[in-house]
Structure formats: structure tokens, C-alpha cells
């Protein structure tokens, strides 16, 4: 199967173009955009790890190393499409329009953190593994029924492919030919369990064959390749050709979360080697240098801009008003039931009428 699903690349890890024809569609400006979004996501991720260490946010889920897969796929979406992320997909949601402030609030335990700005369809990050896949099929089925050409893009990891909802989501999308892109990030580990123990199959892409679905395996650290592959899948979906399963092979450099110690289950020197070899940002830098389009000054400029954006978001997060008690009660049902109303009254009576 590994021969049927080779890991496709547009740009190899040294920045060499492997598909010149396809690259003609991709301007240098577009590539620089991709680099900008990846760099932005990475700097935010690094900041968040520090913020967690300082106790300024709660347990944090890192994605460093996976920016190519997340940014490339997110940039392939258009307005009105639906994104179904997990808790590790903030590089994707940030790129698609979620705000830094909200992402920080998310890690501060705030409900607002899971809500995208008005008009941007991003579901709150799914925590129960693979549960978002059938929902993405459903949201896409709704678009199909409405007669639009909007699609859904759903993220999940290698471990998620063991869940029933992975198979049910793919099957429903296949049976109803929904415009859905199933975007798998195979980062090699489900917390501590390596992909070799997760499945006896050589690839995740091949699982799409069982559902007679378009399926392919790509280098998730090749942001341009990811962008093109997802763009193709989105185009198929928009034109009524049904769902696609994409396995994007990638790697998380860090721990599963800030509460995890990866040295218990893997040699972290592997991550250090990968930072020097397969890194998604480094690859774009090499490509741009080869095109004579890399300016150190540009990098410093965007870095300064991103750092200032992060500082502003951090200030907004830290000065954000404390949650109102009504968030607890007012959104369970459109109108609170009497049991909830009674509990509000008792809660307020004990607190002396204070709502926060």
C-alpha cells in the first residue's frame, strides 16, 4: 500500500521544486503569505507554552511542527466554508480568521475562546476524538441541500482513525457524496502511542479506499503541496465530486500538551533533527532563497509585526472582563427550564444577588 500512496511533495525539504507545472500557479507573494501565516502561528505557539509555564494560561496543546499542514489547508478555504478543528488546530483556525485574543482566551478556560468572529464558520474545537467527522459530513450535506458550493474541512489526527466516528463520518460523507475534505494530520503519535501500534495499515490514506473516496497521502510539512492538494479536494467538493481523504504526514516537535512529558515514550532528539531537515518554515525559506526572493529584512518586519500582534492579544486576554455568571445558565436552553431558574435564584440568594 505504501507504494500506492507515496508521500506527494511539490517542494522537497531542500526547497527544490518537484512539480514545476503546478508551481506556476503559485506566486512568490502567495508563498510569502504562507510563510507569514506559519510564522505567526509558530510564534503564538511558542508564546503560549511560555504563558502556560508562567501560569498565565491553563494546560496548553502545542502544534509546533504542524504549521505547514494547518496553514496550507486553511488557506485553501474560502468565505462561507466550514472548518471543524480539534484542540490542536489553532494554526488552522488562526489562519482562517479566528482571533489571537480568542485563542488565548480558549486556553484561559473561556467560552469566548471557541467562537470565531461573526460570519466565519469555525466549530468550537472538538475534544472527544473523531466526534467532529460526522458533524462535518452533516454541515456539508446541509450546504449541498441548500444548493451552494460551500464545503466543510475537518481536522483529525492519526489516533482518530481508530475511532468509530472516523469510519462513520467517512461512510456518511461517501454515501451522501457530501462536499467534505477529511484532513488527517498524521504526526506519528497519539499522545504516547506511535502510529505503528495504532494501526496495522501502512498508510491512513488507504482507509479512504474502503469508502470509494478520493484519497491521497502528502507531505504535511510542504505547505505549498498541502495548499494545492487541499485546493484540489475543495474544488472537487465544490463541483459535486464528493469527499476526499487527505493524509498529511507531519510531526509535532513538542509534547502532546504542556502536561505531557514526551521523553517517556520517544527520543526527543528526533525532533531536533527534524527542525533542521523537514521543518515547514525552513523549507519555504530555502525555496524563497533559491528563487532569490528571501529578504532577511522582510522576515524581521513580519516578526516584529507578529510579536506586536501577540502582545496586543495578550493584553486583551489579560484585561478581558471576568465571565458573567449568566454564561453558565443562559445558554443551556434558549429559555431556562424551571430547574435551572430555581438554581439561579438559589445561587443568587447565597451570593447576595451578585452575578459574578
Amino acid at each position, binding site marked *: 500500500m505504501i507504494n500506492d500512496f507515496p508521500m506527494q511533495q511539490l517542494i522537497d525539504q531542500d526547497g527544490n521544486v518537484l512539480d514545476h507545472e503546478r508551481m506556476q500557479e503559485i506566486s512568490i507573494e502567495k508563498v510569502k503569505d504562507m510563510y507569514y501565516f506559519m510564522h505567526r502561528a509558530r510564534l503564538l505557539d511558542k508564546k503560549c507554552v511560555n504563558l502556560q509555564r508562567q501560569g498565565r494560561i491553563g494546560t496548553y496543546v502545542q502544534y509546533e511542527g504542524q504549521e505547514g499542514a494547518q496553514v496550507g489547508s486553511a488557506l485553501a478555504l474560502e468565505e462561507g466554508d*466550514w472548518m471543524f478543528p480539534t484542540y490542536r488546530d489553532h494554526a488552522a483556525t488562526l489562519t482562517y480568521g479566528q482571533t489571537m485574543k480568542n485563542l488565548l482566551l480558549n486556553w484561559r478556560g473561556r*467560552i*469566548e475562546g*471557541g*467562537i470565531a468572529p461573526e460570519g466565519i464558520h469555525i*466549530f*468550537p474545537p*472538538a*475534544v*472527544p476524538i473523531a*466526534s*467532529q*467527522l*460526522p*458533524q*462535518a*459530513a*452533516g*454541515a*456539508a*450535506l*446541509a*450546504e449541498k*441541500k*441548500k444548493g451552494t458550493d460551500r464545503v*466543510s474541512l475537518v481536522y483529525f489526527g492519526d489516533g482518530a482513525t481508530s475511532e*468509530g*466516528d472516523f469510519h*462513520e*463520518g467517512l*461512510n*456518511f460523507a461517501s*454515501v451522501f457524496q457530501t462536499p467534505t475534505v477529511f484532513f488527517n494530520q498524521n504526526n506519528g503519535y497519539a499522545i504516547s502511542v506511535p502510529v505503528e501500534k495504532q494501526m496495522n495499515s501502512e498508510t491512513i490514506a488507504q482507509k479512504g479506499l474502503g469508502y470509494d473516496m478520493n484519497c491521497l497521502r502528502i507531505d504535511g510539512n510542504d505547505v505549498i503541496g498541502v495548499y494545492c492538494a487541499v485546493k484540489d479536494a475543495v474544488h472537487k467538493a465544490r463541483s459535486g465530486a464528493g469527499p476526499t481523504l487527505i493524509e498529511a504526514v507531519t510531526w509535532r516537535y513538542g509534547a502532546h500538551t504542556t502536561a505531557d512529558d514526551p521523553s517517556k515514550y520517544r527520543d526527543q532528539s528526533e525532533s531536533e533533527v527534524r527542525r533542521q531537515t523537514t521543518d515547514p518554515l525552513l523549507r519555504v525559506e530555502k525555496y524563497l532563497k533559491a528563487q532569490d526572493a528571501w529578504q532577511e529584512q522582510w522576515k524581521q518586519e513580519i516578526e516584529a509585526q507578529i510579536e506586536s500582534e501577540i502582545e496586543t492579544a495578550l493584553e486583551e486576554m489579560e484585561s478581558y472582563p471576568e465571565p458573567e455568571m449568566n*454564561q453558565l445558565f443562559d*445558554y*443551556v*436552553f*434558549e429559555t431556562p*427550564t*424551571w*430547574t435551572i431558574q430555581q438554581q439561579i435564584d438559589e445561587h443568587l440568594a447565597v451570593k447576595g444577588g451578585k452575578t459574578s
Partner: protein
Amino acid sequence: MSVAVETKKLTMIQGINDALSTALNEDERTLILGEDVGVNGGVFRATEGLQEKYGSGRVIDTPLAESGIMGTSIGLAANGFRPIAEMQFLGFVYPAFNQIMTHATRLRQRTLGRYTSPLVIRAPYGAGVRAPEIHSDSVEALFTHMPGIKVVVPSNAYDAKGLLLESIADPDPVIFLEPMRCYRSSKTEVPEEKYKIELGKAATLKEGEDVSIFTWGAMTIETMKAVEQLEAEKEISCEVIDLRTLYPLDRDAIAASVQKTTRAVVVQEAPLTGGVSSEVLSVIQDTSFLYLRSPVKQVGGLDVPVPVYSLENEYLPSVDKIKYAVEQTVSF
């Protein structure tokens, strides 16, 4: 002035079919999803004729996967549709539990109202129809304990139509449990026109003076039989309340009845421990403690797995058990 209302005598399953047809007819956003709901019209014929009438794009035969049905319905609901998802039997809802518990019931709160799940889960349930294993579970309490979903149980055609239409119109998730024993056990007059019955409102099946009996679903059948005998044999005047909605309970109706009769019995089919009957007791003691002349009795299923049908009559609360509990309460 009396207004002539066209009615027809329907079984509960016909009342449900009527409600579904009404909902499909009046709102294009209404969809039905489930196993065998299309061509076959459902294993109990709840959706009979609906695919023919409204098309396979709206009455949708899905793959055999309960979690997939729920997850897809959540996506549809969040994106503008009003799905009615059928679980073929309540005993098969467990694979969908995660979707209901972690998504359908929380979506409104997780997004502060940006996305909601206005969907209905319909499921035949309960024992007493000699069904195969796992087809007879009564697990309504799993859902009354779950914040974010309303739990409705009709016992006759009139209630089924009005409650189902109200459930479909509800802006939040509703699980609509259909006691299989009630599907064809009686016929009631059902208006042909659309009407809705407010959720959270009980119905008085029979007024009485000495004791209030609270029940729902198929246990209304056993309870009414027991009451008939108690009144004839023992001259005990019983009031029977069909709760109809198990979350939220009709607190006012429970209180008013207990305060009138001063005694109460709760009859449920499900295993007693942790059941809805305990919640009814909680409402009674909270609202009517000083009115009670005797301890409230509960009659329920046993705290054992619902058995295969050779044992189901041993499992189910019987007329005799209900009579025994009522007599004990009255003679305390």
C-alpha cells in the same frame, strides 16, 4: 360557541406519522434521518409513506450507524436544518451517546448561542412487546440526567401528535421516547389540523381524592388497570397523572395533585435506582412535605438488566404491585 374540529381516531403510531407528515409539509428545513425510515417506512411504520410524499432527500435512509446519524444530524442542525433522527430502538442509542452528551446538548453553550442543535431524537422504547434482547430498555433517566436536552414520553395518539410537533419546533434538542406498548394499544380522537402541546406539562388521566399516582408511557396502561380494580374492590379514589415530559417535570401539577390527595405513588417501568421516579419524589418533598399523610411509594422495574422476553413479565411492574403500593400508602 362550538367550533367543529375535524378529528380522526388514530393509534399512537398513526399520530406520530401524522405529526411527522405535518412537520415535513410545513417546513422545508425538516428532515428525517434513520435506519429503514425511507422505503420501509420504519420498522414500526412511523414514517410510512413519508418518503414517497416528501422525497428521499428529506426522508433519508442512512447507513446503519447511530453515532453517524447523530453526528450528521448535529451538523445539519447547526447549519440551518431541523433534523428528526430516529434511533431504531432506544436500546441502540448507546453508540450515539457521545454525540448527544458531548455535542448536541452543549453546542449552544459552547458557542454562546452562535450554533444550536434544534433536533429531535425519536426512539421506540420499553418492554412488554416480546421483542428480542436489548430492544426493551427504558433508559430515560440517562437523558433526564443530561443537561441540555428535554425528555418527552407520550402515551397516546393525541399527546403524541401535539408533543412531537412541539418537540420539532423546540429550539433545543429533545429526545422523544415512544413506548412500543402504546403504539397500537388504543385509539384516540386526533384533530386533523396542527396543534401543539407545551412541553413540561402533565395531563390528568383521571381525577381522584385519596391518592395521586404519577406515571408515564406504557405504565399508564398498567396503572389505569390497577386503578379500576382498586376503586371497585377497595373504594380507593385515585388520581392518575401522566407526566408526559420527564425533563423538565411539571412541578406545579405534581404539587397541586399531592396537596389535594395528600398521598402519592410513582410508577415507572425503568429500574428504580437513579430513576425519574426519584426526581418526582424530590419534587413532592420539596413542594408538599407538610401535606403528606404517608410516605410516597415507588413502583418500578427491577435493578437488573432488562431481560429477554421470557422473563419480562417478571421484570415489569405489574398491576398487583401497583395495587399493593397504593393500598400500603392509603392504609399507612
